[in-house]
């Protein structure tokens, strides 16, 4: 147990730590500023002074993909448990305090991050920091917490996954896509491992990853960088860094050289469909161009009713109720590029898949519709205007990117990178990705229809 030690240090540091005279604030534009605390916490301030409200978010660079084998779901389980007691607060007191202050709070866990946030009147920011700093190091879990809350996460899994054949299918498809990386394990955990999660498992994860040098603090709304600096130094500054924090090198995917296929049957399936996921590069700090090209490619191919897949499959051939393509590139390790076709009644999954393949091949063959590409780029530029209306959305964008190995600069230049992408860039990036040998094709059926 390293708890005692880590607890002791802050008290000392409260009086002895230099007040970060050297941590300079960088003002990136009229909205975004950043600075670091001496203990390694990175701080991002996003200003919006239209209403006296702030969003306070603590992002940990730790998610389900950082779990060790055998304890899947522990990152998410711990997220639930962070609302239990600390040395000075009762179980449930955190959220209750936020609520009696008129705020709302919640948390979420993903593969690459765990994040906690509160939305409150801006004059309550200090209270949020005090409580968030407290639970970063002073959590006091009991066996009873584990037993009850484990039932809760299992009911959560029942609700999100077991009761939804589409979710069960997605889980199997992901497991087939990632042969070595933890992205193949569901964030909520495999049921049999969730059932055996113990107190020690959660504490081990907590001690390893919950430390200021593994966090990004994002404060968005009616605050100034000066205020955030003063308050964060007061409340987070005294926390000791974890000197044993290791860099996030996780098992990577081997060469994929076999096309994988899965067939998932469940009588609760009402609408059969085909989904194919290809392994794809993630948005990378050294190369955002590939990801930008893939994002635009996915939009052209399958986003909305003017997309290539939709035009061909829904409007011309009338073979699909719905057809789409998407790429989620903001992740620390390899991402995926996915296409889906939901056939109209009477069309078999076999024919639907063949049609999807034919249309993807055609897309790669014909020149890209430049009007369409320009419309997409224009919409992306406009979305920067609309984004200013929602600082919580902006805060999320920064949190996701920064926990995925990107920098503030990467985030801010992203619109320019997208703007500069040519049709050649798109075709090249897609050609590399659309390789069936690094893909999983899944059929979701009720088992009642003939599959061939």
């Amino acid at each position, binding site marked *: 147990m390293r708890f005692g030690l880590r607890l002791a240090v802050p008290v000392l540091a409260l009086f002895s730590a230099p007040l970060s005279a050297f941590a300079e604030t960088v003002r990136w534009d009229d909205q975004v500023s950043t600075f670091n605390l001496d203990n390694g916490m990175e701080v991002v301030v996003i200003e919006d002074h*239209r*209403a*006296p*409200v702030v969003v306070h978010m603590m992002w940990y660079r730790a998610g389900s993909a950082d779990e060790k084998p055998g304890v899947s779901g522990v990152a998410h389980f711990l997220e639930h448990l962070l609302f239990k007691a600390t040395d*000075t*607060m*009762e*179980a*449930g*007191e955190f*959220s*209750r*305090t936020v*609520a*009696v*202050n*008129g*705020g*709302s709070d919640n948390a979420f866990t993903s593969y690459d991050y765990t994040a906690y946030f509160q*939305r*409150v*009147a801006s004059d309550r920011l*200090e*209270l949020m920091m*005090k409580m968030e700093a407290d639970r970063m190091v002073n959590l006091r879990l009991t066996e009873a917490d584990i037993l*009850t*809350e*484990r*039932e*809760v996460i299992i*009911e959560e899994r*029942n*609700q999100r996954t*077991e*009761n939804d054949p589409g979710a069960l299918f997605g889980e199997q498809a992901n497991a087939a896509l990632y042969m070595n990386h933890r992205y193949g394990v569901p964030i909520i955990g495999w049921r049999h491992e969730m059932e055996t999660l113990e107190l020690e498992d959660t504490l081990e994860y907590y001690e390893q990853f919950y430390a200021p040098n593994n966090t990004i603090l994002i404060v968005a709304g009616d605050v100034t960088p000066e205020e955030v600096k003063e308050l964060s130094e007061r409340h987070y500054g005294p926390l000791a860094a974890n000197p044993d924090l290791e860099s996030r090198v996780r098992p990577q995917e081997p060469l994929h050289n076999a096309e994988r296929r899965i067939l998932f049957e469940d*009588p*609760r*399936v*009402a*609408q059969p469909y085909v989904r194919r996921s290809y392994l794809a590069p993630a948005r990378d700090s050294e190369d955002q161009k590939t990801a930008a090209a893939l994002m635009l490619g996915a939009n052209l191919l399958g986003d*909305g009713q*003017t997309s290539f897949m939709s*035009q061909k499959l829904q*409007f011309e051939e*009338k073979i699909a109720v*719905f057809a789409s393509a998407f790429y989620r590139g903001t992740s620390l390790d390899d991402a995926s590029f996915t296409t889906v076709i939901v056939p*109209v*009644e009477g069309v078999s999954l076999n024919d639907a898949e063949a049609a999807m393949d034919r249309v993807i091949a055609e897309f790669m063959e014909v020149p890209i519709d430049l009007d369409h590409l320009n*419309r*997409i780029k*224009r*919409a992306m*530029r*406009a*979305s920067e*205007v*609309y984004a*200013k*209306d*929602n600082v919580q959305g902006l805060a999320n964008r920064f949190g996701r990117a920064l926990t995925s190995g990107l920098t503030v600069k990467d985030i801010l230049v992203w619109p320019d990178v997208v703007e500069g992408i040519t049709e050649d860039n798109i075709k090249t990036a897609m050609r590399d990705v659309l390789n069936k040998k690094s893909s999983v094709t899944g059929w979701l059926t009720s088992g009642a229809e003939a599959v061939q």
Partner: protein
Amino acid sequence: MKQFFYSLVTVVTIIAAPLRADIDVQEVTSPLGFKAWLVEDHTIPFMSLRLGFKGGASLDRAGKRGSVNLMMALLEEGTDDLDGRGFAREVDELAASFNFDASGDSVSVSARMLSENRDAAIALLKGAVAAPNFDQVAIDRVKGQVLSILQSDLKDPNEIAQTAFNKAAFGDHPYGSTLSGTAVSIESLTRKDIQNAHRDTMARDRVFVSAVGDITAEELGALMDTLLEDLPETGTAMPERVEFGLKPGITVVPYETPQSVALFGHRGIKRDDPDFFAAFIASNILGGGGLDSRLMEEVRDKRGLTYGVYSFLSARDHAELVVGQVASANDRVGAAIDVIKDEWARLVNEGVSQEELDVTKTYLTGAYPLRFDGNGPIANILVGMQMQGLSKDYINTRNDNVNAVTLKEINRVIKDVYLPDDLHFTVVGKPEGLE
């Protein structure tokens, strides 16, 4: 009792005067007489516009269930000048966004558009709102999409529960069936039916408008006249009132799935009832979000019987109920239901404490101004208020009304509104020990 204050009071004063929603609402009347609520804010060069038409999907004609919902889905599928894809291209071209939605009490249009091309965006939106062409090819395709959703709903335990509960509670009234219709009703809809649904619901006598963002009162007046002048003067008659008709008890809808979903409720309280604020606070204490409610504490936190349980007051235009939902594994849902029943009874027998009342007031009054968050959400709230018949002054008096509720009053109202012996549970799944 809980001691949730003790550790922090020394550092920060917890209960301070609640933030006020600093929202300056102007009432605008256009040259042609259309009215709107406007919040001008020129910080960001775009505006959000919201139109709400009272009545909504409950105005489906006899035998035409699903026609209003299908009509709303078809508004973006083409106008007199453009087909559906042409329309979508134009929307992208302008970087605007339009959403069309049908609910049981209204149909609504939400739009946002950049200041630099607002006139063009309004011209385009006008095509969808006032001159949709309901092309037969589009009707057939969108019907296919609705049918696909309906098929999925038949196998979704949440939808199955909703459908069974509403049918039993409201019978043949539109509230008793899903607004998407059935496979049979959808198949039978003709282009004429869709045109009727449009004329019946989107009329000048029932429209409410709000705009938030980079636009002046004068500009908004002109914009409304352009957008709405071609709509018919009147729509069809509003639906009748309906009483909640579900008797106490438990109904099980057998369905092979590991986790049961239970919907529960009984009759409720009208939005304009003088006791509404007291009931609203009680509802938050029993089953609301934000503060951990009694139901969450007892069913989830203490016993781990569910991931989520909630209940709330549903005050609709033609009926009102108290309703809630829980989901638990088949072998545990019976226990969850028992706890919910016990909490319902405890609320009535013991009432709420002064401390619960105070804390909930602080939460509700503090949270209220935080809702006014961004142009789109504000526009949405402003149309909702108008449709409920509230004055713009409500924004300033709402928290005073919450604070005015006394302990004596809330505990009297609880006995009128919460009816433990009337609760009906509709359970979908393979619940053990329930029949």
